């Protein structure tokens, strides 16, 4: 099992750092899955109510100049590691002016991701700073726990408003209540509502637009024939939503929200920017 990668371009390095920073704000530990072409940061949270799970997919070619990976076995050419993204974020933090950053999987006294940052220095040789980030190797028998979440049948899919605005609204609402209700319809309208004994506050967004979904098998079945005006609603933990919005350092070109109002009740926010896809699932809280 081997892994070696190298980033030489500063812009790529900054983008990669920003992705890692976003991930580190969402979760304390996560799973890094390495394949020949992609990297995935996965959080699979099995908590039933109010829990969150995350799936972030990056194309390695967009960031790395060199990327060599040899998985566990020929038929299973992948590596799954458990790591603390904050460590990686810290290692990259002081690498702004780096000439190169090399990442390598090693096993000296314990499995580590060794990040070697080559910095310019006044002396004849460059300064090299190495960070050994301890990782846990996840055995093949539990790889199934980290499968890509299938897109569940959703009731409504809508583009999100400008995230900054949504973030400031949610931040203020956080002070008033622990739960927030997101409701949206297929006419591009979305409301954010909180309700307490003393006060209820609703923020209305209009003209957001609904993404067209290609009619995949079972994907749009529940949305078809749906009254355009009728709202699908989801009640979620406001702190998790705020955490997601606050951690955003990558400006998505598209961010959308799928609400599935069913027994299982999952809400999904899916964001894209050119290089990566971040999928964040928040499971709904049971309403009274």
């Amino acid at each position: 099992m081997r892994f070696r990668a190298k980033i030489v371009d500063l812009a790529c390095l900054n983008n990669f750092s920003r992705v890692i920073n976003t991930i580190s704000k969402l979760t304390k530990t996560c799973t890094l899955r390495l394949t020949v072409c992609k990297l995935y940061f996965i959080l699979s949270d099995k908590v039933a109510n109010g829990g969150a799970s995350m799936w972030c997919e990056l194309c390695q070619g967009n960031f790395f100049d060199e990327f060599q990976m040899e998985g566990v076995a020929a038929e299973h050419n992948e590596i799954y590691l458990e790591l603390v993204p904050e460590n990686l974020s810290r290692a990259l933090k002081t690498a702004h002016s780096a000439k190169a950053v090399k990442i390598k999987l090693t096993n000296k006294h314990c499995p580590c991701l060794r990040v070697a940052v080559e910095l310019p220095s006044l002396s004849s040789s460059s300064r090299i700073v190495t960070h050994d980030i301890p990782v846990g190797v996840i055995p093949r028998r539990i790889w199934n726990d980290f499968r890509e979440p299938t897109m569940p049948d959703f009731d409504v899919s809508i583009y999100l408003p400008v995230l900054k605005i949504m973030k400031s609204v949610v931040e203020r609402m956080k002070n008033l209540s622990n739960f927030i209700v997101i409701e949206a319809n297929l006419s591009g309208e979305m409301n954010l509502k909180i309700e307490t004994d003393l006060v209820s506050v609703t923020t209305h967004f209009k003209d957001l637009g609904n993404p067209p979904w290609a009619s995949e098998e079972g994907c749009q079945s529940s949305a078809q024939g749906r009254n355009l005006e009728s709202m699908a609603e989801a009640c979620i933990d406001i702190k998790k939503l705020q955490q997601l919005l606050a951690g955003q350092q990558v400006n998505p070109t598209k961010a959308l929200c799928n609400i599935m109002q069913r027994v299982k009740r999952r809400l999904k926010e899916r964001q894209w920017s050119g290089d990566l896809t971040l999928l964040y699932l928040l499971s709904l809280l049971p309403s009274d």
Partner: protein
Amino acid sequence: MKCVIAGGNVKVLGRAVHSLSRIGDELYLEPTEKGLSLRAVNSSRSAFASFLFAPLFFQLYEPGGPAPDTEHFRCKVHMKSFLGVFRSLPSLEKSVGKCLILLKHRASRLVLQLHCKYGVTKTHNLAFQECERLQAVFDTQSCSSRLCAPARVLADAVVHFPPTLAEVTLGTGPGGKISLRNYVEDEAELSKTMVTELWLAEDEFQSVTVSPGSRITFCLKEFRGLLTFAEASNLLLTIHFDEPGRPVVFTLDDTVLEVHLVLATLSDLESSSLPPPTNGVSHLPTPADDFADDLESYMVALESSACEGASGGPPSPTFPLRTPRTAQSDPEEQEEEEDEDGAVPGTPPHKKFRSLFFGSVLTPGGPGLAPTQEVLAEDSDGEC
């Protein structure tokens, strides 16, 4: 005592106080003929700093010399109160023209008066307490290793370590390279903590005189305070060190200012000729590209058993607290004394560092010990 500091030097004094505030809660002042000395020590007695401002630093300097044969006046004030006067360095620079420090014996007050722009005068009256001399025992001449570099080089190196990091290990490697690495205490912690290491080339230093394979571990927090001062004043920093366990001394020298920071270092049980087991990594030198990274055997072990590979390093050294020797020991040697308050909370480094010696006092610039001088350990009442 009366002294006046003018112009840009007010900010230098302010920065010095900020630096001292990272060390201890009390600021000791001692006006002498050689200049005004400001000192601080931390509660576990493992860090000591002194800033000596020569008379030339001041616009006016009257130490208020004592009568012959009496000792100089010494006092201490609360660090917070003194720091409060110099809290905002930018505003010091912008609006303060002059600073007057005056000791009013009868009123028991230390007066700090800032003369600012537009005729504004701010007067601070601080209560002081008379005290004994605070002096750590150290001798830079007897240190076997010495490094000298512009402060900026070290500041750039230290920035890679997280601000909360307590201890860092400075070591020498082959090819004259100097390494800095965060110190991880337990073997158990090692598999959970990120380890950062960096190497500085010999030519980044102005001078390097080290015994190869030497290595010391000291607290970063107090060192950072000094680095900030040194970098701002653009001074050369000299590091004097010896074996692990003996204090490391950082000095800054200028025509009008002499700064010393003495930090205790962790000691090894084993002799320094053996590779240090603490961090569990054999200290192979320069970061080579092709070290073994084969995880096959690890994976086999993982898949066949539930437990992960245990690291089998030797146990980390513990730090013995030796019993104090008698007071009659040679003043040139560094004596050792148990930390009286083993339960001092919070201040890094913790009690595993030996205390510095506030034992026999070496009169500055004078060799030998006046036999009548007491052994002074600064433990006045009410101190924790």
